[in-house]
């Protein structure tokens, strides 16, 4: 059931939801847990980074040897994924930008592979890590809000940059203070705009985090059922494939929509 047999149900769940954190000794409490801002979740950083390096390295390799002739299997697959994302970008984003398509590809592929870590049985990686002396491991990086917020905040800044680049700083400020109610209600417009723009990264990050965290939680609860987990884990995993893909797609799609909004004048 769990890595250490003596754990209670609560302990088991908590164990599964604790990141492998590192921080300075000063930031540790009596039990050795890290607190404060200067804490790093090593599991999130390493798993997401390695997955990204592998998958984007593979894509870069396929793209580097890509030819206009008959594509190989890897190139064909990469082209299929990239083509799908590119189609979405073409349908939604009408400006000219060398950044939007690569950004959308990165988000879709990276979020997808990180979400897909959820399909590895919940105890598999923590027990394997425990065997080599690592006591906490949260294998699905997208269940860490630090990752989802890092992505959504990056998207937010790219969005601001896109606004300024397309409309100019003056144009952007004019839009912020005069839309949607006209220049007479500038403070109201500004507050509306701030709320609207702040809501974007928060909803992006929390949607992905919430979905994956809940999905992971269900896997953990199913794993607590002893022998009954066998008939339950498979259907949930099959269903979860849908969520994995859907959440990656939604994150990508909303990013494209935000970029599109940023590059069009109101």
């Amino acid at each position: 059931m769990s890595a250490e047999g003596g754990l209670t149900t609560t302990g088991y769940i908590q164990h599964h939801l604790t990141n492998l954190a590192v921080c300075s000794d000063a930031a540790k409490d009596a039990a050795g847990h890290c607190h404060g801002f200067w804490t790093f979740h090593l599991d999130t950083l390493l798993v997401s980074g390695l997955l990204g390096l592998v998958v984007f390295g593979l894509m870069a390799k396929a793209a580097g040897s890509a030819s206009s002739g008959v594509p190989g299997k890897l190139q064909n697959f990469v082209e299929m994924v990239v083509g799908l994302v590119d189609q979405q970008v073409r349908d939604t984003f009408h400006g000219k930008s060398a950044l939007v398509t690569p950004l959308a590809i990165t988000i879709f592929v990276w979020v997808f592979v990180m979400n897909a870590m959820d399909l590895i049985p919940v105890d598999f990686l923590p027990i394997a890590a425990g065997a080599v002396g690592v006591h906490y491991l949260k294998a699905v990086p997208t269940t860490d809000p630090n990752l989802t917020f890092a992505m959504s905040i990056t998207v937010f800044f790219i969005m601001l940059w896109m606004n300024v680049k397309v409309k100019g700083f003056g144009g952007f400020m004019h839009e912020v203070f005069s839309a949607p109610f006209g220049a007479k209600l500038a403070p109201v417009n500004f507050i509306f705009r701030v709320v609207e723009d702040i809501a974007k990264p928060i909803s992006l990050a929390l949607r992905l985090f919430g979905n994956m965290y809940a999905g992971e939680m269900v896997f953990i609860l199913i794993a607590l059922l002893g022998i009954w987990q066998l008939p339950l884990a498979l259907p949930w995993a099959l269903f979860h494939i849908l969520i994995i893909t859907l959440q990656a797609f939604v994150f990508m799609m909303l990013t494209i929509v935000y970029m599109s909004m940023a590059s069009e004048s109101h």
Partner: protein
Amino acid sequence: MNINATLIGQAIWFALFIWITMKYVWPPLQKAMADRQAQIAEGLAAAERGKHEQELAAKRSADALREAKEKSAEFVAQAEKRAQQIVEEAKGNAKVEADKIVAGAKAEIEQEVERAKQQLRERVAELAVAGAEKILRKEINASVHADMLGALKQDL
């Protein structure tokens, strides 16, 4: 749920992967895909052109065949005409030659007849003289009557 410095690390990862995709994944793939699209379009256009050209060639070859047939028929007709002409000419030539030969032969025959007549004349005269000599041996001297015989020879 606690927000901490992991956020910074993840943002760096994210930026790195965007950069990789932007520099090493998307441009070559986009180029390959666009090139392939262009190649396929070109291939289809070439096929269309080829088909059109083939149709034209078929038409041209049919034209050429028809023309060749017409020309050959003309040649045959001309050749037949020329052959007839040659036969006609040959016939004419043969007739002229035959006439010439016939005329030559006639002339020769006439000459021969003339010569035979001459000989006969001489022979008749001789026979007559010989007969007359035999008859007149006793009373007629050949030399005396030579003038008369000569005149007779002329009359014959």
